[in-house]
Each structure stands twice: as C-alpha cells, then as structure tokens.
C-alpha cells in the first residue's frame, strides 16, 4: 500500500448542501455580463479579493484565499456533468452514487471503503460526522461509522451499574447477530448494531486524548472538522472522513446568507489545516469540497435559483495550488439553455483524480468509467 512518509493517505470530503454559488465564490469580477446578470447578488469589482485579472475571491472567502495563496488549494472550475439535474435530491444522489442515468443504492465512498477494508476489519475505516449516514457511504455489506456527537458516543450509557451494563452490551451483541436478519434491512441492522459496539470501544478515549491550541468557531462545519481532526490525530486508521455544511439553497436573501456560510466554511477549513499541522498530521490528508450544483447565472432579485457548472476545491499540503479545468464562459451567447454555466469537467474525473493520484486506488469500478483527470498534486503517495 502506497504511503506518504510512512502514513496512509486520507481523504476528507466536505459536502456543501443546497448548491454553493460558484460564480459568487470565485467571481469573474471584470465581466460586464456577470454584473449585468446579477444586479442584486453580484459582488462589486471593488469588493472582491483579486486572484488575477479576471477572477477574484468573494470577500468572505479570505481564509480560503490565504490557503490558496500559500499554494495549498486546487480550484476545480466548472465541475458538473452532462444534463445537470436541477433537483437537489436527485443531483445529490448523482454525486453520491456517480450514476446520472439510473438510481443506485451504492455510494461511491462505500465502494472506496470496501476496496480499502474488504473484510471490515476496522469499523472506523470510514467515519461520517453529523446527522445520518450520507448515501455516498452506504452500500450493502459496507461499514461506515456515523458519529452524531463524539463527546457522548456510547450505548446504554444511562445504565450506571457497570456489571449490568456489561451484561446488557453482551446480550445486545448477541441479539444483533447476522442470523437475526430477515432480508436486507435485518442484515443491515444486525451489522450496524455490531459496528456500533466496535466503534464505541475505539472512540471512547478520543476526546480526552486530544488537545490543540487551535480554537475553532462554534458552527456545524467547524464542529465537524474539529471532530475529524480529533479522530484523525488519534490514529485509529480512518481513511475516509465525511462532513456536511448545509444552508446553501439561497433562492432568497443570498447577499446575507452566502457570506455567512462562506466565512464559516473557509475559516473552518483554515483552522482544520492549522490543527493538523500542529499535530504533524496534515501531509497525508487531502480535503475535497463539493456541492451538488452551481446556481443560475441571473439572480432572481433576492437570490439565485438552481443551476449547473459549479466548483470544487482540493486542499492539502501536497496540492499543487492553482486553477484547474476552465472557468465556464460567462458570455451570454455561451450560456447553457440561455441561463446556466456550462460544465467544463466531469465530477467523476475529479473523484478519479483523488482516488488514483492520492489514495492510489483504481477508480474505474468506483466511478463507473474512465473520465478526464487533472494533476493537482506535487507529491503523491509512493
């Protein structure tokens, strides 16, 4: 297995739920068409944090700009897929399963987890923080641990008598045996029950072992990335982490909501990288930030509707920072259906990039095909 300085490569996925406005994150601030299309939500040229002659960061993305300027961020411009679906749910399904044309119950990261740990030797190979397990991590027979609250993770925690609790946990374990299962749900439930017990044992001491000088803000994405840092630095063998940040569906009040979310997100990412570096645990980590679609080019007088042609961000110490793929044309004659950005690279190629070049896995079966990749790493595992 390929290593980075003796350590296994690790992937941290950050899902932005609702559809991050790519055009208002990396802004084509010199384009007249941009300002004309967005009288309400557009950011004035004077306010952007310029990156080059045509593009600038949203002023609330300063923390990400710093990481970018330090060479640690690859921006994937125009990420998407043919016939981008405008339904949040179907679109998120497509990103999670890599199947734009049919419904699949297998998540792409579940396939990754299965490849890494085919016999489920470690219930923490994949860990998701937050509410529920994302479909990306769900597949029959694949274990992924979902942690709602790392500080109070346990079973029958109210039973105070130690002996009683130990016996109850033993009985629990025997009730959740594979043969209990009748059908798919029963099998899944039995497996989940046993994984809970194994995961609890491993995670019990994580909070007390961790300390850091980095002070994260208190919001869902900062909390989640801090939890990733706590588990990653505990060295429990987790290879895939999943976190989510919701609220990006700003059909209305985008000028108020978007900067708040960008501030939360970019500061959390910056704190996370600083935290890992403090623990000498950053170089094996690559972070991939994605969202289900970009937003409509023209604003609607308050916010923006669902569109296509979004952006993704790959962050890490060994990233060869810069712009990848092409920024979708903002010229009105190039707009898809007369209203959307055209995607310039397929998202499955970016998954493939991260899997093949960072995780050193064959992505073909995982993303169901071969897609154009980019080369965003200076150093990769060997």
């Amino acid at each position, binding site marked *: 297995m390929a290593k980075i300085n003796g350590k296994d490569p690790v992937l941290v996925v950050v899902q932005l739920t609702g559809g991050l406005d790519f055009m208002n994150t990396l802004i084509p601030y010199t384009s007249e068409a941009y300002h004309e299309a967005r009288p309400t939500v557009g950011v004035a040229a004077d306010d952007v944090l310029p990156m080059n002659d045509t593009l600038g960061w949203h002023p609330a993305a300063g923390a990400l700009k710093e990481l970018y300027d330090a060479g640690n961020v690859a921006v994937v411009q125009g990420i998407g897929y043919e016939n981008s679906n405008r339904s949040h*749910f*179907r679109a998120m399904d497509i990103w999670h399963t890599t199947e734009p044309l049919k419904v699949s119950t297998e998540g792409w990261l579940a396939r990754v987890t299965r490849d890494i740990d085919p016999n489920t030797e470690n219930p923490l190979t994949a860990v998701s923080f937050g509410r529920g397990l994302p479909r990306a991590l769900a597949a029959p027979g694949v274990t992924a641990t979902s*942690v709602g609250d790392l500080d109070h993770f346990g079973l029958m925690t109210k*039973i105070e008598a130690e002996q009683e609790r130990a016996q*109850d946990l033993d009985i629990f374990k025997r009730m959740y045996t594979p043969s209990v299962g009748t059908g798919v749900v029963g099998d899944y439930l039995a497996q989940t029950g046993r994984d809970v017990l194994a995961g609890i044992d491993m995670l019990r001491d994580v909070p007390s072992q961790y300390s850091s000088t980095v002070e994260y803000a208190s919001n869902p994405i900062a909390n989640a990335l801090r939890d990733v840092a706590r588990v990653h630095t505990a060295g429990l063998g987790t290879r895939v982490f999943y976190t989510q940040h919701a609220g990006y569906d700003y059909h209305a009040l985008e000028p108020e909501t978007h900067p708040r979310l960008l501030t939360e997100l970019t500061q959390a990412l910056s704190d996370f990288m600083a935290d890992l570096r403090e623990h000498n645990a950053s170089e094996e980590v690559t972070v991939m930030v994605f969202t289900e679609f970009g937003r409509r080019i023209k604003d609607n007088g*308050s916010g923006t509707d669902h569109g296509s042609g979004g952006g993704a961000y790959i962050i890490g110490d060994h990233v060869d920072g810069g712009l990848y793929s092409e920024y979708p044309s903002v010229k009105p004659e190039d707009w898809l259906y007369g209203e959307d950005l055209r995607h310039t690279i397929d998202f499955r190629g970016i998954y493939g990039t991260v899997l093949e070049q960072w995780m050193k896995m064959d992505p073909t079966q995982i993303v169901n095909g071969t897609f154009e990749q980019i080369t965003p790493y200076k150093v990769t595992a060997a």
Partner: protein
Amino acid sequence: MASEAIELRAHLMRRVGVGATRDELEALEDRPYEEIVEELLNPEEPANRDADLFDRYFPALRSPDVPVGTSSVWIFNIANGGSPLREKMALFWHHVFATGWYKGEHGPSIITQIAMFRENGLGNLHQILLDLSRNPSMLSWLDNCQNHAGDINENYGRELLELFSMGIGAYSEDDIKAAARAFTGWTFEQPIPLYPTGGYDSSFIYRADDHDDDEKTFLGRTGNLNGEDIIDVIVGQEATPRFLGRHLYNFFVADEEQVPAWSIDPPRDPEAIDQLVASFTESDGDMTAVMRTLLNSEFFKSARYQRVKSPAELVGSAIKLANWPQDPDPAILTWSPATAAMGQKLMDPPSVEGWHTGKEWLDGGTLSERVNFAVEQVMDTSKPGVQSIVSRIASSNGAVEPDAFVDQVLDLAGPVPASEDTRKVLAEFASEEGPLTFGSDDEREHSEARIGRMLQLVVSSPEYQFA
C-alpha cells in the same frame, strides 16, 4: 399469548399512532375492526385540545425556540391525545410537505402549518394543496414571497410538482415555469419583527398587482391561470394519487425506496397503489376515503413490522410503553431533542425533500440514540406502563418459568415478534435466576427488577426498531 384480534389492533394502533397499552387493546378486542377504523377517521376530540393546558404549564412554548416545545407536545398528543390518526396525518403531511421553521423569522407560522394539517389532513386534497400554497411558512420556506410578475422564482412551482403532488416525469420544465408564474402575487403579510417582541405568525395575502396575468399553458390547460387553476389541474392528474399513494404506502404500510427512485423503480406493491388511486378518483380526492381504503385493506393488515420506526415513532412508542407521563411534565420537552439526535428534527427537516425513511433512519449513531432513549424510558419500574406489565405477569398463579417470563414480556411490550435467535438470547438471560416468584414483598421486588431489565433488553432488540 395475544389473540389475532389483539395483534391486528396492535398493528393498527402502531400505524395510526405510536401503539396502545394492553388495556386499551383489550377494550378494542371485541369491537369490529372496521368500526374502530371509522372512529379513527372521524375523531370526536377537537383538534389540538391540549394547547391551552400546555401553555399554562410551559410558557416557554411561546419562546422563539417554539418548535422544540411544540413538537414535543405533538409527540405527546400522538401517544395520549384522543385522535391519534389526526395527529399522525399531520406528521404524514409534514413528511411530504417538509417545511423548516428556521428560514423565516416568524417561527410560529410553522406551528400554524402543522395545526392546519391536523385540521385538514383527512380532508380533500384540493383544499389541502390550496391551504398549503397559502401558508406563510411555506410561502417563506420555498420563496414564493419572492415570486413576482415578470421576475419569477420557481422554487415553489417546482417542488409543488416534484415533491408535493405528481413526482418527476409527469410534467416539463415549461410546466414548472407556468406554475411559478401562476403563483405570482401569492405572498404573506409582513409579520411583526422577531426582535424585540418575539415571534409572531403571519397571514396569507394575494397581491393582484404582482400577479402575472398573461396567458400560460400548464399540462394542457391554457389561459390566465392562477394558483387555484394549477391545483385544479394537479388534483385531476392520475400521477398525483399515484405519487401520494406511494407516500401513504411508505408511511402507513411498508418501507418503500427513497423518493428520488420513484420516477424510475416501480412500487413495492403496485396493486396496493392501484387501490389507493381508485379510491382517490372515486372520492374526488377525499383523504378520509383513501385512508379508509388503506386501513381496511388486506395489504395493510398483513404488513406487520414492515416499517422501520421513524424517530418520532420510536420516541412515541417508548413513552407509550412506559405510559408516562400522562399529564404535562417537563420530561416531555426532552422528546424533540431526542428525535433530532435520531435524525428527525421535527419542523426542521434537512431539506424540502423531507427525511429519507426506512433503513436510512438507521446508522451507528442513530441506532445508539434509539436504544439509549428506549432503555431510559423503561428503566424506572415505577412507571405505570412497566407496573402494568409487572402486575399482569404477577397475576399468574404461582411461579413464572423463564420461558413464560420472556414470552409474556415480548407479548405485553407489543406483541414484539422476536426472532428465534433473539428469543433464545433473552431466554438464557431469563433462566439465569430461575422462575419469577411473587410470594413475599422481597420476591416481588426482585421479580419487578428482572422484568424491568427484560423490558430494557426487548426495547434494545433489532425487532423493536420496526413498527
């Protein structure tokens, strides 16, 4: 052991509510099933009967954090109110018309929305969709307040078709735009600002001067269409009862795939959906008629334990089993946070798609929360529900052998259909200390503790995760 009549009525009550105590089931045992269904469909209790009572106990219910208190009381009312189906229908529509309170600064309007579902949830679909389209919480949640003549915001128009009525595939992108245009001018009156006076409700207002009066074509109907016309067309499309019928099936009968798959994969039981569609068509969209068909059908009666309990149902079933509290108590306010930790924050769904149901309720984190909550409810053996089970077991003549001990607890807690393996594990535990005896006070106390622990194990079981 419970008779088939008890088992069937227990099934019915789990689905129209969160279950019933054995005393309640025995009161129903000899009554005709269809008569019980009629009573559930036509409750005499006025909706929301306990609102004033709870307000007196918990002034905090009127704080800006309203949904926590109100959704806890909602669970209480499903379990203990006189009209469980009315409360459960409100929960059903909340699953389908998933609205979050946090987006608008008038939290009380989500409470009004749920109260509206409680009132109209068994009414005519035309009225339900009309009320929904005029609901300030919905108008704000899906931005119809930003949907203006000449400057449309298609959020509500899209989701009305995709998620609230027909499902993907029954209409085109042009239909979405036409629907959005038809709903221009449907907005709400500016409520009193949240700060400093607290949350206030809003009310619907139609702004004719902001309505797009040009000709539109929606699913074949052309004219100066307004929102009412769109709803009229929607209710007349067969796709509507087909899509909502599948929602009813998923919520009341057996777990279906997740909604995004419905435009591609056929229903689990196509004939069941056909029956619901026929009932809808014959009754012109009367939800009481559709629910009558569903609850009296063979496909419903036979679908026992075919659904993973939603967090609200899991919490409800555990507090119903403990049968405490039966009156307002501060403990009630912990129930909404409990369902949230299990993945269902009522009145605050993750998105307009609502919650993924069935198997997706279960993962390592949520299973721990479910088990921990249920165990905590039955830990205290002095609670009336536990006491009732103890008394029933104690009333047998003489000692209760370990096998009978397990079977009686499984029976009285549901009946819970334990698999052979689960039963075997529990029987081993039961036999560790031999038969239950109730001769002396000490014996009774010890047996009570053992029954309590057995109940804790039963509510931790895989089988208890299903309804």
